[in-house]
């Protein structure tokens, strides 16, 4: 059982067999119970495996984390709101909150607007699907690999030495007198250097969704506007933007959640050094480096609280869709 391959094969045959067996068994039981019970029980038995997994891995842990956030480092004594007071006044944490706000504004803003701009632009060229594939490609790779790619792009050598990082090499060649910048250690540039990696990964997502919505706008509508003398610019602001507003909201909410949870890129590229700390990485450090489970839990709860508005927007939108179903 210790051989991973054997274990995986057992899981691959065993799990589907068990899942199939489960459906057969519950339907077998349902055939034997009175019809009234059958009607009541059936949905719950079909839901049961999912509800079990969701309870164990989401509902129970989330509630338990709220409880842990009010206990001390070893989860032994009740400390009330002390962890929250510490977290909300701690310098590193406040820095992380600031940086997440930078992510929120710049990552979300740039990714949505670049996606929108690209959607409008690629709609007008014949190699549209190729261009979309290229922009979308980073979505397939891990943030860790993207981190390696961009760390290499940002590589810095002192002025005068031969630059092996693309960005510094390009700028020193293009601009006479340009002094190479340590993009990931310079306090003015490092957060934006990280955010740029996030943008590189996620613009494809924003592009694909907005482009699909753009295709949904009737061509006659835009044509009619042109005939009436509207410029492309006016067509964009008066027709395309209002029509796409609900789709833009969908993309924005998804990206806001990503910005709040930003972790992989920061962990791999700077590990929060040089003032690039983010909330999720802060929590990881409290958990694994400092072993303060109370503070780590408090950070997690604050992260959750920040996502609640998005959750409400999502549920409202879902309800509205169900109403027209």
């Amino acid at each position: 059982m210790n051989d991973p391959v054997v274990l995986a094969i057992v899981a691959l045959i065993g799990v589907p067999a068990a899942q199939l067996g489960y459906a057969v068994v519950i339907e077998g039981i349902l055939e034997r119970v009175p019809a009234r019970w059958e009607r009541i029980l059936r949905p719950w038995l079909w839901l049961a495996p999912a509800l079990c997994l969701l309870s164990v891995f989401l509902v129970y842990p989330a509630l338990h984390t709220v409880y842990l956030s009010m206990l001390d480092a070893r989860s032994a004594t009740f400390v009330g709101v002390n962890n929250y007071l510490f977290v909300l006044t701690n310098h590193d944490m406040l820095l992380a909150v600031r940086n997440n706000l930078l992510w929120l504004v710049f990552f979300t803003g740039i990714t949505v607007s670049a996606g929108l701009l690209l959607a409008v632009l690629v709609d007008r060229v014949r190699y549209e699907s190729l261009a979309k594939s290229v922009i979308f490609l980073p979505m397939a790779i891990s943030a860790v690999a993207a981190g390696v790619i961009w760390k290499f792009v940002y590589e810095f050598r002192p002025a005068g030495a031969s630059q092996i990082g693309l960005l510094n090499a390009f700028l020193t060649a293009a601009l006479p007198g340009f002094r190479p910048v340590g993009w990931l250690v310079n306090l003015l540039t490092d957060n934006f250097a990280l955010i740029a990696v996030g943008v590189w990964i996620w613009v494809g997502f924003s592009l694909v969704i907005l482009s699909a919505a753009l295709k949904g706008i009737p061509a006659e509508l835009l044509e009619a506007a042109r005939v009436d003398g509207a410029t492309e610019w006016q067509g964009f602001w008066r027709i395309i933007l209002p029509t796409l507003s609900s789709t833009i909201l969908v993309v924005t909410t998804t990206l806001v959640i990503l910005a709040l949870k930003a972790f992989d890129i920061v962990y791999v590229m700077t590990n929060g050094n040089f003032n690039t700390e983010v909330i999720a990485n802060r929590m990881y450090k409290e958990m694994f480096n400092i072993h303060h489970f109370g503070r780590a839990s408090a950070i997690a709860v604050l992260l959750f609280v920040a996502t609640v508005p998005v959750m409400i927007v999502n549920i409202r939108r879902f309800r509205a869709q169900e109403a027209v179903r």
Partner: protein
Amino acid sequence: MVKAGASRPRPRVWQLWRARARRVPLHTVVVGLCLLWLVPAVGLLVSSFRPPRLAAISGWWSALAPPYQFTLENYRAVLSAYNMERSFLNSLVITIPATVIPIMVAAYAAYAFAWMRFRGREPLFTLVVGSLVIPLQMTLIPVLRLFTAFKLVGTFPAVWLAHAGYGLPFAIYLLRNFMGALPKDVLESASIDGARPLAVFFGLVLPLSIPAMASLAIFQFLWVWNDLLVALIYVGGTPAVAPMTVTISNLVNSLGQNWQLLSAAAFISMALPMVVFFALQQFFVRGILAGAIKG
């Protein structure tokens, strides 16, 4: 443009060229952005084939001019000496079951949500929609303790179960929306004809839902393969189980400036998802659209 001027064209051709010239800025922007997206990745690929001696002193672009000096040595080194071979296997062993397990569980639940009436259906499904955005961070400490209690920390089943649980809300959501949109009369007439729910599910609903399940499988595959956080928390300290994302993030710290090795390692981790992506892009895009636009 030179050609158009040189051959003294007829007016219609001239207009054609003028129309094309007006589109030059458009093409410049689109092509330029495509290059911006591609060049960093190309740099990684080129670097991974360069000898260490050259990679340390010159940019990867200088390898594109003769004399060509490429080597496979970096791949050999990271695979054998830096645990990448084992990590590749681990990534596979983690990802495949973690993709297979949640899909059927989600399909059962989605069937119940879409086609069965019961009290509490709407609130329960609203809870699923809400849980789509819950940060994983909310669950890490209690689940880690649970795994510790069951001696599962640092094992494959721990990551399979965690990914199955975390992937479930999206899976249920996507499949329920898809199944809910299946033609009502077909399913109802099957029930009237006396087909049991088991037969309706496996005979009708599941085969009709294959496109949605394919999208879901690709999503879950890429999400698990590319995951760092879950693996870091539950198996991070166990090299025998750690996937490539964890191994590479450690290499970034330990290998520092050895870009030829780091880029080879990164490229090994990118190869499979890129193949999956190119082969099954349509399903991937369809899944994103269904997950985002419909909800």
